């Protein structure tokens, strides 16, 4: 193969690889990118039921309840204006507690609730999801 042809071939191979990867990435994005909702987003626009989604907010104080089966819990995720009830089966992550920030992964149900398959609480105890921080008074920082 002449050098010029080889270069052309390499260029084409690169195009094919990039094209294939883009196609893979786009199709994956289409059905897998989880939309992020805050409770106020949920209140204003109806999220699609059953589709992978993330819900972020603060765990409302006094809302955490454990069901009789011993492994399921229910709580309410809130931001400044709205709330969403969440059900989760599993061991809550370390920094999950009432009054703290949480991001729940799962999907919305028909009755306006959210079933979480995974809970993400931040490592940092002073953390609040940025989307929520914008809608809440700033947390105290150096207070000891």
């Amino acid at each position, binding site marked *: 193969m002449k050098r010029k042809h080889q270069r052309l071939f390499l260029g084409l191979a690169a195009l094919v690889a990039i094209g294939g990867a883009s196609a*893979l990435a786009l199709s994956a*994005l289409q059905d*897998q*990118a989880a939309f992020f909702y805050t409770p106020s987003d949920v209140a204003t626009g109806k999220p699609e039921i059953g589709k992978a989604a993330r819900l972020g907010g603060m765990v409302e104080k006094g809302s955490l309840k454990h069901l009789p089966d011993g492994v399921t819990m229910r709580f309410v995720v809130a931001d400044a204006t709205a709330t969403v009830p969440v059900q989760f089966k599993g061991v809550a992550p370390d920094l999950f507690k009432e009054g703290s920030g949480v991001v729940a992964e799962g999907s919305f149900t028909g009755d306006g609730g959210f079933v979480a398959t995974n809970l993400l609480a931040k*490592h940092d*105890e002073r953390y609040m999801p940025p989307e929520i921080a914008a809608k809440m008074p700033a947390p105290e920082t150096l207070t000891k």
Partner: protein
Amino acid sequence: MIAEAGLAALWFAAALALLQLAMAGLGLWLKQDELIAAVRPVAIVQGLLAALSFGLLVTLFLQSDMSVLLVATNSHSAKPLLYKFAGAWGNHEGSMLLWVTVLALAGAAIGLIERKLDRATLTATLGAQAFIAIGFYAFLLTASNPFARLSPAAADGMGLNPLLQDPGLAFHPPTLYFGYVGLSIAFSFAVGAMVTREVGPVFARAMRPWVLAAWVFLTIGITAGSYWAYYELGWGGWWFWDPVENASLMPWLAATALLHSVNVLAARDGLRAWTLMLAVVVFSMSMVGTFLVRSGILTSVHAFAVDPTRGSFILVLLAIYIGGALVLYGARVGRVKAGQGFDLLSREGGLVLNNLLLSVILGIVLIGTLYPILAQAMGQQLSVGPPFFNKAAGPIALALVAAMMVGPLLKWRRDDANALLGKITVPVAVSAVTMALTFVIAGSIGWMELVGLGLAAGLAVASFAPVWKRNPLRTPMFTWGMMVAHFGVAVSLAGMAADSAFTSERLVAARYGQPYYVGPYRVVLNGVAPTIGENWSAVEGRVTASRGPVDGPMILLRPQRRFYSSPPTDTAEAAIATRVDGQLYAVLGTQDAEGRWQLRLWWKPFVTLIWFGGGLIALGGALSLIGRVRRARRNVKRWEEAW
């Protein structure tokens, strides 16, 4: 006093970096040998001063000097010594100081050790290194002074996040930084080479050991980070495609591509422009990573010590460095002479394929990581999770492993298709048989896991081919390195595929004495007892597990729920029992009103192979490095005469 001395050392180091850049620039421009000769000692002193500054910060943490703001907010006098030590970099300011210290020490190391480059290129390289350092000194001195005082002094300090109080994590960030920042060296070398237009095999051979060293640290850092997330977070997962994890994976992917392309340049004088480009991309990726981790722009479970106001500063630095390098690249690449040509079916061709696939994976990870930011800028909240990355990057990663089976068997310059077919028969057959057997035995597993297991077996066999039937003593060390690293990839892949395909999981509300079953194990919670540590108290589950007959040997697992008082935090400490064929993993949850305890159990077959393989990959890199350095020693004499 110590804080002020630390700050002074930092100022001096910054001034020396400026001086270093000015001397390198003027010296090269005016061809002043005295100026050029002074650049190396300045680089060395700059590195020492930065290290002194960081050492003084560590001293402040060890002494629990609560009159220093950073210590008061991130440490506590009642903390174990190791974590006082690690507290120095478990926060924004300290970690940025560590960043610049590693950067300056890397510059000093080049000045001290580098013997292959010609004098002008070395000077330009040190100038570029100083240029990068200046930005970070400015960042520290204007926006994140780690030595700021707190008046009046705090009584006790706020403590370090308990999740960070883990021996593994204490040394995880420095390891990662050595890798991350070490990659700046590749960038500086590329800039230096572009300035003096010396883009040939000499430049590649000079750059290679530095890239190798940085890559080894990065590999260790990523492997250790993955294991930390696995046992500390208690989620039983080893990779979450979290932005912060991606921030370290992206430079690793780029550096892996660079490691392979630099070999083509060093051995065959090919891929000149591409290798330069990769060196720029590699450092861009560590800058993007630093930006992602430090800016708090993303919702990440792993982001520690974030501060959005500082993100813009790093973004500006990023724009200056990357933009500047790209402009230089654009101006100079046209005049970089084309290297040697090669046949497509050759080792060079194989390495081009490797680079292509690695770049595509890098592109996917980059898009998946940055897409949510773009979407946010356009007013849409969105997050991209593991399903995207697995689905988009998984198939390409498998193609890459398939290419790895073939690549090392190819000859340089040109190879013969028939000869190649003969060489790959065995590995391909092993792959096929493994897949068929797995399918027959396990039946319903995902196609990616099935192909992954098959390719892992094939690669494991193929990786031995380059050393097969050779006299082991006369085989070069870097060939052994390549073999070990490629075998490590096979081991790691086998672990990943086995874990995704065969993990069994149970979530129970456990009553004392009642058996539960997970995988081959029968697990019983016998009781829960209080226990106490240096700065925590805990309740500890007494869990026994046995497989086979009921009276067989027992494993005792002790998962804990810990309570740290400063800052007040609950953490779950998973209990993990390691067996030859996998790990039994138990997490204790909370107790309910009826006295039952939440107990989450996993049986993870062969999961340990993931990190064992990561260790092998790093070991392979280290062996190659030793091989390269040894060989280079023999050439030093010639160089010393040339200076």
